[in-house]
């Protein structure tokens, strides 16, 4: 320890590392406290539901185009790629299963979540951050209006409500895209495409778990988005870096959570 003073190169490095870790943990604690406070003060957002509906318009309705178009193209690519691989084993009729299962279980929630994070999450962060930078939040506090109840909670609930609906539309659109390419373009038998899909997609195991995934992603993405916005430095630079952090953190959170949820949901059947 006494050497710490002499080997000047190591100590500041360790100090900085420690500082960074402490700051992260402090932020995590603050984020959790913020989450709890937000849930406790959601009463206004749910009672004056008009506030939430307005935010659903901005978060959900305006993400509709990107979600639907991406879903269609993802499904079409799955159709092409899946057919290419499956026909080598002479089982091109299983294309429906491949498209439906990969969309409903994984791609629907995950890709819709990533798109939602970059389309709606970043917008939420920027909006709240700018409100903070232009001192609108401080003004609300002056007027004894709780900004978390009035500004943050409606956006959070709007995100949580929108995300599963967007993911469901993404999956449905993707399956339609796979159908277009597989059945209409390539000529896989239509009856086999749908009946094999229906035989192996389970409502509880696959679809419900996909919906649960998308709800979890919705909570994670909007939580990160509102927190980053609320926590942003009230400057132009602070808002821009908070927006970047929202997209990066929520993308990582989606992928990590997806792994955990998949491990919990889809490997149980074989292990038991």
């Amino acid at each position: 320890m006494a050497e710490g003073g002499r080997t000047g190169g190591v100590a500041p490095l360790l100090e900085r590392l420690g500082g960074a870790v402490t700051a992260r943990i402090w932020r995590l604690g603050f984020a959790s406290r913020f989450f709890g406070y937000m849930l406790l003060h959601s009463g206004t957002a749910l009672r004056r539901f008009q506030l939430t509906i307005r935010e659903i318009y901005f978060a959900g309705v305006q993400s509709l185009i990107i979600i639907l178009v991406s879903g269609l193209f993802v499904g079409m690519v799955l159709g092409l790629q899946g057919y290419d691989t499956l026909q080598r084993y002479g089982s091109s009729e299983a294309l429906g299963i491949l498209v439906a299962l990969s969309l409903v279980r994984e791609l629907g929630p995950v890709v819709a979540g990533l798109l939602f994070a970059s389309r709606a999450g970043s917008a939420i962060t920027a909006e709240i951050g700018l409100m903070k930078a232009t001192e609108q939040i401080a003004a609300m506090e002056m007027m004894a209006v709780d900004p978390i109840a009035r500004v943050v909670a409606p956006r959070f609930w709007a995100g949580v409500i929108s995300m599963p609906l967007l993911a469901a539309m993404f999956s449905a659109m993707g399956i339609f895209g796979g159908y277009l390419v597989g059945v209409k373009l390539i000529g896989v038998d239509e009856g086999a495409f749908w009946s094999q899909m229906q035989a192996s997609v389970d409502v509880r195991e696959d679809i419900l778990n996909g919906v649960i995934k998308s709800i979890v992603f919705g909570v994670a993405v909007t939580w990160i988005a509102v927190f980053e916005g609320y926590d942003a430095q009230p400057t132009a630079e602070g808002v821009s870096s908070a927006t970047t952090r929202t997209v990066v953190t929520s993308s990582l959170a989606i992928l990590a959570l997806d792994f955990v949820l998949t491990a919990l949901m889809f490997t149980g059947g074989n292990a038991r």
Partner: protein
Amino acid sequence: MNRATIDVWVGVFVAAGFAGLLFLALKVGNLASFSTSQTYQVQAKFANIGGLKIRAPVKSAGVVVGRVSEVRFDNESYEAIVTFNLDTRFQFPRDTAAKILTSGLLGEQYVGLEAGGDGVMLKQGDRLRLTQSAVVLENLISQFLFSKAAEDKDAKDKK
């Protein structure tokens, strides 16, 4: 944008979302098929179940009549005990035989039921006596090789 327009768009959005969910549940997942009907449990012992998994279909004459609900190892007879739920709409005689079959060459394994001729029907908790294990490819190949070798030996002896 005024309030009424926003309401309309959100309404369209939510309706489209539920339409997507409904499409997934009905057209993709076939919700109407099985999960709600009443079932009764039947057990069967197999010497080898191969790759049979929970929720694998139970078919009779190619029609799905139930699903495998549990696969357990019996530590006394060293055999596998497979429990399956059969739909109460389908009644089978007590001497029905169960086989573990494979759909296609590389397909999933399922339980095939072949109805017997007994007048008494299976009840909840009954055990099927006639079973046939899964075909294990390695055993099949080694049997084939042995019989081939035996044939060759016979041919040599005759010379």
